[in-house]
Structure formats: structure tokens, C-alpha cells
């Protein structure tokens, strides 16, 4: 039984209009370098967006709050407490007094307004200012239904992030994951979806059967996941807009470890039969299966390269769990993990430059990355148990889960985290219950 996802969020019409102001940014502009290890967070001021009516003021304040929180969570920006602001909101309408913002040490300033139009929709404008160069860096306006104000705030955050870092943002995204509660032996698991900041949380399944490893389509509002409905693990496909769900493939035995191809046209997965787990891919248009691996070892956890030419996967063909890369026809298999311990759950970055993985070494679990040829291995997070990385759509942030030890009554805690590719800024993603197996959506459009 699937609970239909609310449609409002999905069919939201957010129109984007660039504001042509004719102001050309100065040369010596702010630029946040996000490829370095640790960066001192850039102080930014996000003023409450101006509103006329009380409702507009409320929306304006809420939007500023969401933008602040988004920027803060990146670890790259440090929003300044608005109690320190010198210039007030109403005078900002007349013009920015840059000196007032330099006094409180703001490097960048975000201003904006919210207006409810005659048709009931809300129109939100924002401007990003370089306080020292005293010019506008970017600005856009957005029009949508009032209930959609959070998405507008995320879109604005993405625009700010892009302008200041030079990279695509990841705020107008969602995360699907498995919500968990209860002791180890009676743990209830439900598929759940939320905005990347934890808001708009919804359950998608009712918890009567176990679900695991949901993954987003890169091109549509669909997810694929593992379901234990009927007590046999099977790969399912779920359309988030219609709530329609189907089992992928009608074969005997188990299927698991699904993941979409970069073009969204096929799902690669493991099928287990008679003690042998192999990787297959299913074309969603023809429903035809093709086999990728042919080896008596366990071959699982496949993930495509973003150009669709290769698959990284997990195999114990060398005696223990390691990472291998092969061509999509199954040829040219190469092992890429060689350090101490066992490696699992490889996931190719959407940028193509790195592969994230879980590593089991000593008595710990690690989340790490390496280049597709196996070089440049780095650990980004660790724990008693850490597993299942997923990439932000810009390839800058990883999300995964950590689980603690359980006690003799089976009490256990599992939580979703994010960490920057630099290995800094690990944060817990607050969820109503426990959470495992996060999967990041592509940017919504």
C-alpha cells in the first residue's frame, strides 16, 4: 500500500525571470573556493524580504530564514544574526547603504521582496549584493502559489550558491530514505520523502513490509527500491506523481540493489539464483533484461558512470568484497580498490570524477571517495556503522547513514548525515524517526 505523494510540490509551477538590471559585476568579486579543504565561512547577511501586507511580511521573513539555513548548512557561509543589522528593511527599498553592511562585516548581502498578486500567487524577487564592490551580483524573480514559498526559497539559495561558488546548487532537491523505528528485531521501516532540509516530510509506504535502498530517477519523478512485500525481496518502481507502483521483472528468486541509468531508461540490479548473484540491467521501455556479469562470485551494488559507458560494482570474486569497474557490456573488468579491508556500495559521482563507497576496515565503517581508476582514496566520515553514500546532484556533498551499537534488547539508533566532499562539515539531517538509505534527487525543475 502506497500513500500517494502530494502533487502540489511536484507540479509546482515556478517561473523564473531574470531581472535585467544592466549592472555588470565588478572584477574583484567575491568567490568562494569550494574545492579547498577547510574554508573560513563567508559572512553573509540575509535581510528579511520586504512585504506590504502581514501575510507578505510573514512569507518574506520565512523565505529569508530558509535561505539563511540553507547557506549555513553548507559550511561555506556564515549568516550574520539579523539583530546585528544596522540598515532596516524599509530603508533597503530605497537603496543599500553598503557602509552599514561593511560595519557588521558582511561580505555579501541578500535582499528581496514578496508580494501577493491579484491572482493569489506570490511574486518573490531577490538580489545578491557584493558589499565591498558595492554592486549587484545577481537577481531573479519567481512567481508561484503561496504554499510553494519553500521551493522559491530553495531556488533563490541555489542561485546565490551558484553565483558565489561557480557551481550548481543542490537546495531545490528532495531526499527519499527509509524511516525506521522500534527494536532491531521488530524494526518498522517505511519509505519516506522530504526536502533536502528535512521539511515537507511524507511517508510513502505503511510499514507493513520492509523497504530498503530507494534511488531516484535522474530524469523523472520515479524511484526504484527494494521491497520485502510478500516476504521475497523484489525491485519495485514507484511513480511519485501518480503513486503507481510495479514490480520490475517477473522471475523466480530475489532481485535487489537497483539503480537507474543516467538517461533514466533502464534500471541495473542484482538477481540472485541458486547461490549466485549477478548484475542485470532492465530496459524500462522494452522490459528486456540483459546480463552484465557472469561469474560464480557475488556481483552486486552496480552504479553507472554519468556518461553511461561503465558500471562500478561490488564483487567478492577476488576472495573478499572489493570494487570493480566494467564496460556496460560486461567486458573489461578491472578491480579498483586495493587498500586494507572490504569495500562496498560504490556510487559514481554525477560529475564523473569520483566514486563514493563504504569501507569496512578494522572495527569501523568508513564513507570514502576514490577516483574511477582507484587512485586518490580519501575517507570522509566514519562510525561504528556507516553505509550507503548518495551524491548531491552537484557532486559536492555526500549523504549516508550511521548506525550505533544495539543493546541486548535490540534498542538501536540510525541517523542520516551529510558531509562535504572536503571531509568537513558533517551534519545530521533531522528526521522525525530514525533513518537509513538516503538517496538524493536531481535538481527539481
Amino acid at each position, binding site marked *: 500500500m502506497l500513500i500517494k505523494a502530494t502533487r502540489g510540490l511536484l507540479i509546482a509551477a515556478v517561473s523564473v525571470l531574470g531581472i535585467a538590471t544592466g549592472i555588470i559585476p565588478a572584477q574583484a568579486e567575491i568567490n568562494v573556493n569550494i574545492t579547498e579543504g577547510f574554508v573560513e565561512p563567508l559572512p553573509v547577511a540575509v535581510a528579511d524580504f520586504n512585504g506590504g501586507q502581514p501575510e507578505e511580511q510573514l512569507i518574506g521573513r520565512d523565505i529569508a530564514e530558509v535561505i539563511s539555513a540553507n547557506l549555513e548548512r553548507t559550511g561555506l557561509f556564515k549568516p550574520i544574526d539579523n539583530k546585528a543589522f544596522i540598515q532596516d528593511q524599509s530603508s533597503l527599498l530605497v537603496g543599500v547603504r553598503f557602509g552599514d553592511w561593511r560595519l557588521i562585516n558582511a561580505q555579501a548581502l541578500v535582499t528581496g521582496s514578496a508580494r501577493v498578486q491579484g491572482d493569489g500567487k506570490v511574486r518573490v524577487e531577490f538580489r545578491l549584493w557584493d558589499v565591498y564592490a558595492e554592486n549587484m551580483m545577481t537577481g531573479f524573480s519567481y512567481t508561484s502559489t503561496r504554499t510553494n514559498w519553500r521551493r522559491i526559497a530553495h531556488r533563490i539559495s541555489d542561485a546565490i550558491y551558484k553565483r558565489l561558488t561557480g557551481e550548481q546548487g543542490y537546495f531545490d532537491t528532495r531526499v527519499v530514505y527509509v524511516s525506521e523505528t522500534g527494536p532491531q528485531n521488530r524494526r518498522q521501516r517505511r519509505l519516506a520523502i522530504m526536502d533536502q532540509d528535512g521539511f515537507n516530510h511524507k511517508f510513502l509506504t505503511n510499514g507493513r513490509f520492509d523497504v530498503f535502498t530507494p534511488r531516484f530517477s535522474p530524469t523523472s519523478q520515479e524511484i526504484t527500491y527494494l521491497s520485502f512485500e510478500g516476504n521475497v525481496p523484489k525491485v519495485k518502481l514507484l511513480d511519485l506523481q501518480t503513486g503507481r507502483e510495479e514490480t520490475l521483472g517477473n522471475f523466480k528468486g530475489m532481485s535487489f540493489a537497483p539503480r537507474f541509468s543516467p538517461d533514466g531508461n533502464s534500471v541495473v540490479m542484482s538477481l540472485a539464483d*541458486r*547461490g549466485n548473484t549477478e548484475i542485470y540491467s532492465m530496459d524500462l521501455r522494452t522490459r528486456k533484461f540483459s546480463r552484465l556479469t557472469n561469474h560464480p562470485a557475488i556481483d552486486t551494488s552496480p552504479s553507472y558512470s554519468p556518461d553511461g559507458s561503465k558500471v562500478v560494482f561490488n564483487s567478492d570474486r577476488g576472495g573478499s568484497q572489493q570494487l570493480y569497474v566494467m564496460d556496460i557490456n560486461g567486458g573489461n573488468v578491472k578491480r579498483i580498490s586495493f587498500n586494507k579491508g572490504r569495500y562496498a556500495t560504490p556510487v559514481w559521482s554525477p560529475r564523473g570524477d569520483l566514486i563514493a563507497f563504504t569501507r569496512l576496515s578494522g572495527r569501523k565503517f568508513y564513507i570514502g571517495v576514490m577516483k574511477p581508476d582507484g587512485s586518490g582514496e580519501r575517507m570522509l566520515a566514519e562510525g561504528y556503522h556507516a553505509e550507503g553514500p548518495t551524491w548531491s546532484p552537484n557532486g559536492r556533498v555526500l549523504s549516508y547513514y550511521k548506525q550505533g551499537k544495539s543493546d541486548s534488547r535490540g534498542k538501536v539508533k540510525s541517523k542520516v548525515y551529510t558531509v562535504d566532499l572536503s571531509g568537513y562539515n558533517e551534519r545530521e539531517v533531522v528526521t522525525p524517526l530514525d533513518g537509513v538509505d538516503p538517496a538524493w534527487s536531481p535538481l527539481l525543475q
Partner: protein
Amino acid sequence: MRFKLLTMFAAALFLSACASNSDNNADGSNDGSSATTGTTDQSSSVSSSSIQGPQPGSLEHLVVNVGDRVFFGYDQSDLQGEGQKTTEALAVWMNSYPAVTLTVEGHADERGTREYNLALGERRANSVRDYLVALGVNPNRVQVVSFGKERPAVLGSTEEAWSQNRRAVFVVN
């Protein structure tokens, strides 16, 4: 070792069942009817005794007579000595109850990753199935499924719990 304890427990159950059975028969007073032994003066009477122990061919019967699980080493799926013996006893038991069909559930401990452990559990369940088939059990009578690390039998994050969770469990369909 859980397996040994279970076997001893099962044996104890079996013995106590026998004991109470013979107690009932000896005094013949449980429901006023005579026991089958000793008396001849009431030839028209119906003798009875209460049924003790599980129904032959049931899961309970399997648990008492064979045990319902075998254990594996860390990241291993080979049946070791004790597991082999249990599976051999299971084959004999299945041949005694030819109508019975079985599902073997494969499980893993929590110290692994989800997808690999699903595959590992499937491999463990098939170790049992393959050995049963080698011992003459019809392959159509044995299904397998894996629950990976998702359904621990013993709670806690200890070596002892993990060793008992790396298992294959027999379920009578």
C-alpha cells in the same frame, strides 16, 4: 553455543513428554478410562492417552528432532561439521515426511553492507539447499530466500549475537 543449548532443550522437552505420558498411563486416572496396560475386565472400554509432543512433520516437530538452523563463519557460506550434521538429519527427516516442503532463510550479521549481505544470505541458504539435494531431497521441495542482515535472531552488537545471526533457518511451508 546456541545450537547445543537448543538440542539439549529439545531433548529435555522430549524426555519430559515421555515422562508425563508414562505417568498418565501408569495411574490411569487422568480421565477415568483405563490405560492400555494391566486390566482385562473392561474389554469394551476405549483406551486413550493424551497426545504429547508436536505433530509429526510440523515445524515444531522439526525443531525438536533436528533443530531449525545452522550457523556460518564470518563472511562464510560453507556448512561446517555441525551444520552438515544438522542438514543430514534434516534430509532424513524430510524423507520421512515426503509431503513437507521447506523454505530455507539465509541471514547475515549486522557487520556488513545491506546489498552484499542479501547476496551472502542467499548463498548460505543455497548451501543448505544444495546439500539437501545432494542427499536425495527433491529440489522442488526446498525454496530459499535471504533476509540479509535485516532480521537478527539474537539482539545486541556482540560477537555472540553475530555468531548466532549468521545462520540459515528452516521453515516448514
